[in-house]
């Protein structure tokens, strides 16, 4: 549109100069987040490919090693993350309706749940350290599966570690969203940053939805 027409339209404070309208900006930033999530799918995808190969090669070692993970803590964490996705979706809902206090409440709840997840993860990592299941020189395992269990635990630490890093970044993003909600940047008209942050958060949840059964639930029937 020409400059004259743009000048007549009320210039929203969040509208960047190179966009013609807030609608165009919202469409662009949303598409941008989706394209970024595509890269994340392929990023984690390489790890899933590696997992797939080695689980098909060493099914018994993977099952035995998987038993060493705490299924109660893992399930709890899954429930925690699913709940955080709920609170995130409710935060987006509140933002779309301009309900500032409710938005902030749900953002805080989401962050707390994320923190709980990381806390439980740390406890699990500590258990692995104490049980000498961290791959490397200190690794200890039953002789028959010694080498291949190391591969399982290597995958466990890289996959859950990378996931945890993404969680931490997610909590950071939520802090920024909380700040924007508090200082009035987020309004019913400009709620897209919350929606876009929500997309990222849900993606991190989805990664865990796959990690949980693949790491914790292998061959559990054979107790």
């Amino acid at each position: 549109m020409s400059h004259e027409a743009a000048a007549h339209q009320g210039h929203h404070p969040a509208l960047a100069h190179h966009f013609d309208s807030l609608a165009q900006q919202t469409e662009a930033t949303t598409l941008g987040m989706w394209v970024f999530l595509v890269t994340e799918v392929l990023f984690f995808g390489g790890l899933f490919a590696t997992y797939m190969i080695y689980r098909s090669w060493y099914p018994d070692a993977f099952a035995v090693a998987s038993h060493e993970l705490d299924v109660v803590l893992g399930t709890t964490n899954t429930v925690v993350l699913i709940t955080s996705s709920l609170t995130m979706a409710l935060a987006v809902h509140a933002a779309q309706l301009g309900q500032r206090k409710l938005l902030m409440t749900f953002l805080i709840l989401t962050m707390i749940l994320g923190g709980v997840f990381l806390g439980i993860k740390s406890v699990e990592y500590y258990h692995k350290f104490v049980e000498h299941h961290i791959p490397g020189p200190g690794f200890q395992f039953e002789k028959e599966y010694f080498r291949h269990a190391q591969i399982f635990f290597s995958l466990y630490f890289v996959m859950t570690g990378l996931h945890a890093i993404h969680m931490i970044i997610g909590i950071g993003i939520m802090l920024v969203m909380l700040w924007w909600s508090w200082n009035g940047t987020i309004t019913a008209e400009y709620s897209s940053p919350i929606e876009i942050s929500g997309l990222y958060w849900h993606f991190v949840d989805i990664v865990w939805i796959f990690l949980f059964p693949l790491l914790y639930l292998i061959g559990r029937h054979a107790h």
Partner: protein
Amino acid sequence: MPSQTLYMPPRHYLNENYGITSWLLTRDHKRIGLLYLASITFFFFLGGAMAVLIRLELATPVGDLVTDETYNKLFTMHGVMMVFFFLIPSIPATLGNFLVPLMIGAKDLAFPKLNLASWYIYVIGGLFTFYALVAGGVDTGWTFYTPFSTVSSTTNVIPVALGVFVTGFSSILTGLNFIVTIHRMRAPGMTWFRMPLFLWSMYATSLIMVLGTPVVAITILLVAAERLFHFGFFDPRLGGDPVLFQHLFWFYSHPAVYIMILPAMGVVSELVAAFCRKQVFGYHFVAFASVAIAVLGFLVWGHHMFVAGISVYSALIFSILSFLVAVPSAVKVFNWTATMYKGSISWQTPMLYAIGFIGLFTIGGLTGLFLASVGLDVHVTDTYFIIAHFHYIMVGGALMGYLGGLHYWWPKISGRMYNEFLAKISAAIIFLGFNLTFFPQFILGYLGMPRRYHAYPPEFQVLNVLSSAGASILGVGYLIPMVYLMWSLRYGRIAGSNPWGAVGLEWTTTSPPPTENFAETPIVTWEAYDYQTPVEHHVA
């Protein structure tokens, strides 16, 4: 050529602000393109210096210039710097950044701050790699094959791995920016099929960047993790599979070669249209071929692994798919040639580079078909045949496309014309030097000279000396443009907004353009390459 007042605007993106911070903190896609131009040129000459040493060593059959270990480091650093720090960013980050908003009639890319961040990320990755170079280099080959890179190599693998990992994100973010920009910021009337073919190429390239780079990123992380923590992903002693590394590495690195060639193909489409003053023959086919190359390019990576230990059935699948991926490339070559037929051809420097591209890319591409055939590949893999093949595509193709584009859009970027005589001479020197360097390598490879060796049987010396002589000529050819392009910035003839009389939105604004690109948002009512309508009427 339509006459017009040759006008240099008093205010444009170069003189809008002065000072180093106005460049280092810029959000203007045009300035960011120039920041990239400076950085990639630095890495080009650094990688070129490695090449000089390699060709000097190979002039004699014995390994007398450098030790084995040093030679390994030379070809590794040459490959790493040329692939990751020059070729992959080259056209997208310089010409792409500069031109994408101009060509679609936008004020900037979708995410200007992210664009600047991409450059910084590139520089940080480059610093890691530069550090590794001065700390003694890496000797694994640019392909980082395991378990040598993860277990046995005693060189600075982790800094280089980190450098490539970080720079990969620069590539991903550039691709993301282009995809969103092309989808959401086209000017009114700029439908998909009115876009210049350069934009189709940039779009296809961006798809590859976004889909492929993350896989090599995670693979490099695993290599670093294995090296640091002795995880067993690729180490056979712990039950790992070295071939898995190759699968993950080549899943990206094969499409990466299409990241390197597709932009150059886009440039060639622009050059052929402009210098034949004709619509590109089969515009739709060329556009679809770009996307087809991007998609099919992801299905062929196993052809780098025919002798690595993959199953013969897998090799057959990859072989058939590799033959298939040549088809869209061939379609483009046919269409460019058909465009030239009965066109009004003018032999300016950019057109010389375009024709050079078409010829040399065809040779390189055809030899790729030899390599797609498993039986033949088993004979020539890991020989100089492979090296000649990919240098024909990367240097004879991509680099010539880059130089052609740089010359074509130089007046738009700088507002000035370069010296045409010197430019033509350089193009000729480059063409001659290139063929003298790399054609003998096809023969050497077929006769059995292995790659990555610095000593060879004496009967190969004549061809090697020819190749080294060619390399010295090629080097001169690359240095001359540095001189006359720099010189033109101050003393070149004023170019005016459309020195070539070409069709395209970028030519409707001033040279150099203002920071906001267009005084008013253009409204597009003409088809791409509409040379039927007089160019003066292509003003929004």
